[in-house]
């Protein structure tokens, strides 16, 4: 191993040591850093490396606070701080952009002791992460009502639609969307209720939106996503519609998807 690689590897371990540079050095079995880093009467070698250690943690903590404001509000500052300390040990950043630093937080939270006090927090973090991903997701031109009206009636049965490539449909166990909206709008929030459901997170123009889906719409959107023809989508709606008029239900869904800017050409 080159001298430079040894130096970088050592500094990486010290900067990311969970209890600070001093304990990191002790774990290395090293007495000090004076033969590596220049210290002076203002700052010892160790204190200088500690500056980087603090910046490492707080830069990532700030980035995660920005991406997960509702999870932060639910857990509180101290718990969130401790969560991030553990998270960075288990999932240290590997990507060039801070955009990725929160990609595993929801999964980490799912098995974390903090779930005892806030069992809905992992679902909340799942939605917040989806909001970030959808915000930066790929663009596609949304279909508008005029372009749909221009389709000849004979072409409808075989018509293939798609949903925005950036959109996500999440399966959740807790109804967290109202809580998230309350935090976004700086209102008081109440804990989420338990309840399996699906939530759609999508982007209209540059704005990220989310809403709960009922079973019929979730099934219909799943059919759209897997490339079903319009006739097949209608069959899904008819099968899941209960007492509803399937044609009216399909029309309602189609109108809403178009208004949401959700549909693209398949």
């Amino acid at each position, binding site marked *: 191993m080159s*001298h430079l690689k040894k*130096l*970088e590897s050592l500094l*990486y371990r010290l900067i990311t040591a969970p209890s600070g540079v001093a304990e990191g050095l002790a774990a290395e079995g090293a007495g000090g850093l004076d*033969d590596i880093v220049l210290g002076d009467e203002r700052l010892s070698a160790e204190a200088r490396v500690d500056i980087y250690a603090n910046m*490492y943690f707080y830069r990532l903590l700030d980035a995660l606070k920005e991406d997960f404001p509702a999870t932060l509000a639910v857990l509180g500052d101290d718990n969130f701080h401790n969560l991030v300390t553990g998270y960075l040990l288990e999932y240290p950043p590997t990507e*060039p952009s*801070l955009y990725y630093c929160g990609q595993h937080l929801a999964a980490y939270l799912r098995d974390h002791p903090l779930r005892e006090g806030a069992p809905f927090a992992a679902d909340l973090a799942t939605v917040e992460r989806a909001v970030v991903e959808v*915000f930066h997701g790929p663009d596609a031109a949304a279909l508008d009502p005029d372009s749909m009206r221009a389709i000849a009636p004979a072409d409808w049965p075989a018509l293939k639609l798609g949903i925005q490539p950036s959109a996500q449909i999440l399966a959740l166990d807790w109804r967290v969307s109202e809580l998230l909206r309350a935090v976004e709008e700086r209102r008081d929030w109440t804990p989420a209720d338990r309840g399996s459901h699906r939530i759609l997170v999508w982007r209209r123009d540059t704005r990220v939106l989310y809403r709960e889906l009922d079973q019929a719409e979730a099934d219909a959107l799943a059919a759209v996503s897997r490339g079903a023809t319009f006739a097949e989508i209608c069959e899904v709606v008819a099968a899941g519609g209960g007492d509803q008029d399937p044609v009216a239900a399909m029309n309602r869904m189609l109108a809403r998807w178009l208004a949401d800017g959700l549909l693209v050409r398949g």
Partner: protein
Amino acid sequence: MLKRRDFPMLGYGVGLRRQHYSHVLETRPSVDWFEVISENFMVAGGRALEVLEGVRASYPIAMHGVSLSIGSTDPLNRDYLRQLRDLARRFEPAWISDHLCWTGVGGRNLHDLIPLPYTDEALRHVVARIREVQDILERPLLIENVSSYMAFADSTMTEWEFISTIADEADCGILLDLNNIFVSAFNHRFDANEYIDAVPAERVVQYHLAGHSDHGTHLLDTHDHPICDAVWALYERAARRFGAVSAMVEWDDNIPEFAELARIADRARTIYETATHTANRESLKKTGKPALPADHRA
């Protein structure tokens, strides 16, 4: 050999930050150019890229990266470089810059600019990597001096010798951050003027102007304060030595109104004009020739 005149003189610019996206797009403020953080736009789609399209339609831009990690002993991240190249092909920046530092090792990223030891080993390593990066990006790279809080016992040269030799041997440009020079000069007790006087003038393509915070024992490069008088003095010294160099105001936290940033960029223009006018007048009086060669003047 790379020379500053190979690049356009963009004038006096500002860092494009999210807080000002709407203002810039809606009012097209009077500022010469924008520097953008490359990684913020290395995404699939959405508002960031839409904003950059809008800004690029009205202004020149330069792309400034924070994660090239040119000094890392990890292999170069070719996926990252390909994305960077594709972004540059799409938005045609005047140049691409990143920092003379390392940001991670062992496949992990510290998201910070960690200094290198100023040794022959590090120098050879960085020179070879810059050459490779320039081949992949299909254009020259500017390397920026970083603020640092630690220096290494086995360094065998000064920071300005290190960056100057790398720029010469890799044939790349230099983005001279005057605040970083000031911060590191305080933290490591060297003479900032000596730094300015030593770097190869023809390779300095851009300046950064920024503020820092004073922690008593050290200065921290926080980009959240106004530019201090001592940094303006360094800028004036640089303006006299280097002539017309594109300058940019870098402010990343506690970001003021856009008009304030534009005003600071205008101050940089005024200082340059006054400094070079004075330098030329003094030189003409003494030698009958202007202080700066013609291609260094605006």
